């Protein structure tokens, strides 16, 4: 397998495209110049670091290094969810719930996919585990954030109806069945849409990566199918965990609706 390596000059050339972002922000007075610069620099530093770290970890082939880095990825995804849902749910229980869901689903789906389906030798090598865990985590992170956001927003909007059901003697999961169902739908929808359009509208990143790296397109497509199934299962499982946990966070042990006020967000 071979591909054309990129020089640093090539990257600088591509970075020139950011001038368009800056020009639009300046022309329409969007005030985004600083954010664009910060985001671009962050992206470069993060990717450079991950390149260096992955190179180190690939050289080890040690399950401990792989697991350690996987934990860092789960922690980063958990912080990202907590940041997106700032002020909607109590922060520590929210981190516990989303971290727990990501850890459980990420571990389960990645070990299933790499350990049993792909089965490389050794199976715990970072080369398969970490990229697949990354793709699974990226999608489950979005699903968990969408589910919890939808759940707390719907509960806020339908507070009167939920409390009416509680007052009539409904347990919390019955009183919140409407918000629960719409949150599950919201969490699972993006992946269903992605499965339906992938390959037509957009070529997935992993498949294009493999093709550029010189892999057979059919082989790359097979890998993409596998990863799509893994992500679909992972988002469904994580959505369920997040929705059930979210109902528990929005209520207390006396089945009372506990919404956080919007202040402080």
């Amino acid at each position, binding site marked *: 397998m071979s591909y054309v390596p990129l020089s640093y000059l090539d990257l600088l050339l591509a970075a020139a495209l950011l001038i368009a972002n800056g020009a639009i922000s300046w022309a329409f007075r969007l005030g985004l110049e600083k954010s664009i610069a910060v985001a671009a620099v962050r992206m470069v530093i993060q990717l450079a670091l991950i390149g260096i770290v992955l190179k180190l970890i690939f050289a080890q082939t040690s399950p401990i290094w792989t697991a350690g880095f996987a934990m860092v990825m789960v922690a980063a995804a958990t912080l990202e969810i907590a940041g997106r849902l700032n002020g909607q749910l109590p922060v520590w229980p929210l981190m516990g719930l989303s971290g727990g869901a990501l850890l459980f689903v990420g571990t389960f789906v990645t070990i299933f996919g790499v350990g049993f389906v792909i089965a490389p030798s050794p199976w715990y090598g970072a080369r398969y585990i970490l990229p697949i865990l990354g793709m699974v985590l990226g999608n489950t992170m979005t699903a968990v954030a969408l589910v919890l956001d939808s759940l707390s927003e719907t509960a806020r909007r339908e507070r009167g109806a939920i409390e*009416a059901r509680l007052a009539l003697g409904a347990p919390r999961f019955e009183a919140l069945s409407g918000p629960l169902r719409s949150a599950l739908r919201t969490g699972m929808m993006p992946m269903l849409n992605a499965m339906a359009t992938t390959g037509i509208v957009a070529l997935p990143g992993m498949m294009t990566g493999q093709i550029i790296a010189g892999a057979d397109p059919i082989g790359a497509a097979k890998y993409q199918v596998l990863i799509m199934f893994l992500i679909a299962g992972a988002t469904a499982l994580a959505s369920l965990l997040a929705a059930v946990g979210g109902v528990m966070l929005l209520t*207390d042990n*006396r089945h009372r609706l506990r919404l956080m006020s919007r202040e402080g967000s």
Partner: protein
Amino acid sequence: MLRVERLQAGRLRPLTFEVADGECLAVEGPSGAGKTLLLRAIADLDPAPGQVFVDGVEREELAPPEWRRLVRYCAAEPAWWTDTPRGGMPPKASAEKLNRLLVSLDLDASVLDRPIAVLSTGERQRLALVRALLDEPRVLLLDEPTGALDPQSTALVEELIRFQMLAGRSVVLVSHNSAQVKRLADARLVLTSPANGAEASAP
């Protein structure tokens, strides 16, 4: 019988009172005095220190759904979660009892299958009362039950409340209508501003 002991709802001073079987306690006070908070605390919809007993059983001794089947809170602005009122009625309710309640409030049975959105505020309020009474709770916490009703419907609702009292239920009534309080209540609880606490007095 409903007994409330040192119950602290919201910023209210701790309150202690009793409502015997078949009796009605009116809760009065200006807007913002905490009347609704008191009813919600009794129904265990908000955390509130203190104790509430129904027939000698405290809130915490029962699972929350069981407690709220005994102690029924009926909000001033009833909310619905289904397209028609029928979906919001308890599924196990007997059709006969449902019809009797509808008739007593001058509602036609066809109203059950009309979209909630096209019902009048008064119809919704009466239907919410029907919904609240169907499974025969022990205690009724009624927040402005006639707030949206014309005099004719108000009279029917008062008649129904009186009938519930005759059946041995304890009623806690929040009402701004002092004539209604005189007609229904055996005792009054006046909430002033939270700082001053509450004064109980006989009518």
